[in-house]
């Protein structure tokens, strides 16, 4: 039972706020690696909270969203099994051949593939795999790989926003809001598809001078891409089981994480991987970062600060006539913040505030969708907005092709109009079909 704060901020809230601000400053300034900063912040929050009496070790453990952490762990392990098979490279080469030298078609095909894969697998991994093969294809066709790399990163970010498992913020939103996979894709899918389509058209327009028709074959042999055909089939089978379970996990009354672990068990039995190969590929740093953030925000929540913030917003959000405006405000502020800072800390912080509004009688359902759209689309604005963007930039610099390197300014020149344009499309869809988001 949270106490009321008629008089304003308490000392506990200010202490918790100071610890969180310090941790976030360390994370965003990159003075320390973000995982190190989150771990330090979590340890300080628990220690300070115990001394001040507003937080405890038990509360800290309870604040960690187990579904998010375990779902990410299981999916990372499945990707670790799938990645070395060469299946992704096979898809890229086949698609490049289907484009028959039409680089606009090539951009659409590659972006579509990356987007669809990003709906179910981590989009950073997807871009890490697709970017080098994209550069090679562009090199062979003698075209600038920059438009392809930017399109893949941006559209994978957009694709990931469509599903519960496509992006870590979505998993957190889904867990907090009790939203199942099917409900998530039904609500987000049409809007994100519309945004995706419009963004592709915009990218094609913005890069129209870089996308000529070329008369050169893609001299790559896709048959050699598959290193382990049987392994690929087994991993795809396990992935198919996972995706099928995602669609019905709410009917079976199981968490998405448990569904992912069922699929992981299948691939573990079929593939019998070496523990080193499996566990070495899990991005423990990301998982530790999330755990640290959950504990930090748990401390702030325990201090009552997030409840207090909710009280300040409740009058605006409670008015049904202002709910649409509130949703749009959440969407745009989430997007603009996500463009300049990591969207994970923002999402982790705002979720308890939204949950707090629910206890005050506000219909928070449309706010979840607005938040998911905002954090999903905002990352495209700047090069630091999403990890996939940084991967695209790194690969563009590394390839050494003249004119291919994407500078931060170069990214923003395309990224900001794309982000604003996609947000306008999403806002229109959200406003026109607001009743479906209620």
């Amino acid at each position, binding site marked *: 039972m949270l106490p009321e704060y008629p008089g304003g901020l308490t000392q506990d809230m200010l202490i918790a706020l100071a610890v969180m601000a310090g941790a976030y400053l360390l994370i965003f300034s990159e003075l320390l690696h973000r995982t190190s900063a989150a771990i330090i912040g979590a340890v300080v929050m628990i220690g300070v909270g115990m001394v001040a009496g507003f937080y405890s070790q038990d509360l800290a453990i309870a604040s960690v969203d187990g579904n998010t952490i375990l779902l990410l762990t299981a999916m990372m392990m499945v990707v670790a099994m799938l990645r070395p098979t060469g299946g992704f*490279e096979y898809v890229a*080469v086949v698609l490049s051949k289907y484009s028959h030298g039409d680089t606009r078609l090539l951009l659409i095909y590659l972006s579509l593939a990356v987007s669809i894969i990003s709906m179910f697998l981590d989009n950073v991994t997807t871009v890490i795999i697709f970017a*080098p*093969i994209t*550069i*090679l294809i562009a*090199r*062979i066709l003698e075209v600038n790989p920059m438009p392809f790399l930017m399109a893949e990163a941006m559209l994978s970010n957009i694709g990931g926003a469509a599903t519960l498992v496509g992006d870590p913020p979505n998993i957190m939103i889904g867990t907090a809001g009790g939203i199942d996979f099917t409900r998530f894709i039904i609500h987000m899918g049409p809007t994100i598809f519309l945004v995706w389509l419009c963004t592709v058209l915009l990218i094609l327009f913005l890069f129209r001078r870089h996308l000529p028709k070329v008369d050169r074959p893609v*001299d*790559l*042999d*896709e048959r*050699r*891409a598959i290193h382990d055909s049987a392994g690929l089939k087994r991993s795809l089978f396990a992935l198919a089981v996972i995706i099928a379970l995602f669609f019905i996990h709410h009917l079976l009354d199981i968490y998405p994480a448990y569904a992912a672990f069922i699929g992981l068990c299948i691939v573990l039995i079929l593939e019998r991987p070496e523990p080193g190969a499996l566990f070495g590929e899990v991005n423990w740093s990301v998982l530790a970062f999330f755990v640290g953030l959950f504990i930090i925000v748990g401390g702030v929540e325990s201090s009552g600060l997030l409840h207090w913030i909710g009280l300040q917003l409740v009058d605006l959000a409670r008015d049904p006539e202002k709910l649409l405006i509130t949703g749009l405000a959440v969407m745009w502020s989430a997007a603009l913040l996500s463009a300049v800072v990591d969207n994970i800390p923002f999402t982790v912080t705002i979720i308890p505030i939204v949950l707090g509004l629910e206890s005050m009688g506000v219909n928070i359902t449309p706010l979840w969708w607005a938040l998911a759209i905002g954090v999903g689309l905002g990352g495209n604005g700047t090069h630091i907005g999403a990890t996939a963007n940084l991967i695209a930039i790194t*690969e563009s610099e*590394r*390839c*050494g*092709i003249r004119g291919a390197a994407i500078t931060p300014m170069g990214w923003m020149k395309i990224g900001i109009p794309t982000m604003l344009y996609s947000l306008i499309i999403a806002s229109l869809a959200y406003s026109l079909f607001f009743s479906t988001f209620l």
Partner: protein
Amino acid sequence: MKLMDVVVPTGVVHSGMIIGDAYRECVTHNVGGLPFCDSEGSVVGRFSLRHTFKKLCLPQDISHHAHLLGDRICSESAPEVVNGDILKLKVDPYITGHIATITPHSPVIKALSIMEKFNSSYVFLIDGEQYIGVITRMAIASLLLKYHKF
């Protein structure tokens, strides 16, 4: 068998030297790399054929997908190799800091172990600060054949 029996004495690479001259020294002595020495003669780096090729004309996107490549890519994608431009470049930006060395008293098995550990086909033989030459797998194998009159 002693390492001094299989050492290949070579010249060294200095700051300001061009890649073409370093390549010639490597080719003359059939070695994959040479020590990079400062003005006092101390080995402070390594010039490697593999590293210069990798840095100058072998982008990661090509090497990573080497198994997919057709036969048309090489010459078209690395014109600087075809026209010899890389031979005129100075060696300095392409020197690596990592140096695998052994002493004349080291056993042959140690030389082979270091080559294996560092995924290299050669190792520098150094006595104190003095560079003596390069030990290669090829030289060790050659000496084995010679010793045993195989």
